[in-house]
């Protein structure tokens, strides 16, 4: 258990950044982080070469399971017409990220919040680099379209 505690101290903040970037809810993020380490310890470290990637994959699966249980439409929170009073750009960006479909959102979060490069994202998600490039590009274009008016202000 001491070894796992050390892993927790080293990796939890990084994993949490990914989780929070996906769910943007502190209670959910804490729950997912707890469940991530619970499953990781239960499963064990045998055969794990990259602990960080392993933990992110577990967290990702938990998030997707959570979304499946809840209604998809509620989780995506598709952006409606913004009210004029909503002037905080960062809050708008958070809302806009939450409005991205999961496949775009996770690539965007791993790139912009976790700072991974294309190869690392491709290896972690087990998708081709071309898919990483196209999803990231679409995420950025979609965010720009959603936030266009706010960015002009």
């Amino acid at each position, binding site marked *: *258990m001491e070894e796992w*505690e050390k892993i*927790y101290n080293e990796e*939890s*903040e990084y994993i*949490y*950044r990914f989780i*929070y*970037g996906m769910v943007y809810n*502190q209670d959910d*993020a*804490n729950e997912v*982080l*707890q469940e991530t*380490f*619970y499953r990781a*310890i*239960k499963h064990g470290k045998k055969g794990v070469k990259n602990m960080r990637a392993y933990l992110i994959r577990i967290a990702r699966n938990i998030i997707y399971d959570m979304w499946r249980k809840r209604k998809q439409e509620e989780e995506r929170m598709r952006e409606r017409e913004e009210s004029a009073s909503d002037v905080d*750009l*960062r809050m708008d*960006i*958070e809302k806009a*990220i939450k409005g991205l479909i999961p496949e775009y959102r996770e690539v965007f979060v791993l*790139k*912009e*919040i976790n700072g991974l*490069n*294309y190869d690392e994202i491709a290896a972690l998600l087990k998708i081709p680099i071309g898919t990483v*490039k196209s999803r*990231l*590009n679409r995420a*950025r*274009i979609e*965010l*720009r379209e959603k*936030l*266009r008016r706010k*960015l002009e202000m």
Partner: protein
Amino acid sequence: MKCNDFKRNISLFIDGYLKEDLKKEFEEHISSCKECSEFLKDILKISEEVKKIEIPEPSPFIFERVKNRLKERVFPKAFVLKVAFATSLSLLAVIFSFHFVNKGREEYARRYIKELYIIKEKSTGYQMPVYNVENNYIVSTGRSGTF
């Protein structure tokens, strides 16, 4: 470079993956197309703002909760319930099997005696008194009775 190509390659440009020959075309397009130049500026602004988003700290109790859950796992409720259920079923199966074995023995004894009576009656011509088998004991029912 056309605007569609520009938008398709914008991420490669920002993240430093665009090949040199395309990069030159890209930069030329930025200087000649106001709309695409604004587009790039907005994408960079979003990237900048995302990095400033304050991500809260995770709860300090998470690892303790994980350890507690792992301790509970040694005797989880579901596991105990399953074992109790399986044990009860096994006990019931044993009890029923004793009951049916006894029934089987009674039936076997009844048939055995009947066969003996038939043989005896045929060989001696004497009508045997009828007996019954109850709880593994042979009891007389008098002259008439059934097996």
